[in-house]
């Protein structure tokens, strides 16, 4: 039972353009969502998060949007840079009931071409 799904295994964009990574979830109890970035041979690095009481959170070039009714979130990167090329994982938790346990999606490989 895949509770967090990232349906696009890969995404390729040109430098300077917008990258949009999508994530869907099925568990309505999830109340906190995170995005992690992973380079080869390294562990995932926290990027940005959003609580279910918000619909948008912005940090520099990164913005996460949450649509609770659709159980969908997306990560926007503007402008995209070659250094953003990595695997991006969406993760979710039920902080009210299960604390900090994270459920991850499968990941999306982003490639930003110069």
């Amino acid at each position, binding site marked *: 039972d895949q509770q*967090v799904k990232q349906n696009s*295994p890969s995404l390729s964009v040109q430098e300077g353009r917008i990258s949009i990574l999508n994530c869907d979830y099925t568990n309505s109890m999830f109340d*906190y969502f*995170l995005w*992690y970035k992973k380079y080869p*041979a*390294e*562990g*995932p*690095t*926290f990027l940005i*998060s959003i*609580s279910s009481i918000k619909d948008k959170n912005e940090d520099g070039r990164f913005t996460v949007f949450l649509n609770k009714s659709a159980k969908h979130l997306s990560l926007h990167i503007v402008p995209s840079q070659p250094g953003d090329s990595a695997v991006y*994982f969406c*993760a979710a938790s039920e*902080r*009210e009931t*299960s*604390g*900090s*346990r*994270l*459920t*991850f*999606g*499968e*990941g999306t490989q982003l490639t930003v071409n110069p």
Partner: protein
Amino acid sequence: EAEVAQSPRYKITEKSQAVAFWCDPISGHATLYWYRQILGQGPELLVQFQDESVVDDSQLPKDRFSAERLKGVDSTLKIQPAELGDSAMYLCASSPYRDKISTDTQYFGPGTRLTVL
């Protein structure tokens, strides 16, 4: 900048052998997690410690896997005997999380890549 340390970085073993992985979390972090990431999938939680106590090991295959954090600091994850399907990246993470209602981020180590032949 403080980091989560893991060793070894790579481990090759034959099936039926025993393997052990070590993790040293960021100093002061109360919560420690072990995840397994199979190629092409996201990390999956194996076990979560709060200080020295296990708070979630529901996904840990207890017939062959064991984990301990005796003094509430560093931790060891063991597999005995290893099977071919155990080949994966084993990730350790830590967070200062103490309260259930927390925005604390999990910080990951570089992982141990296990290959079982």
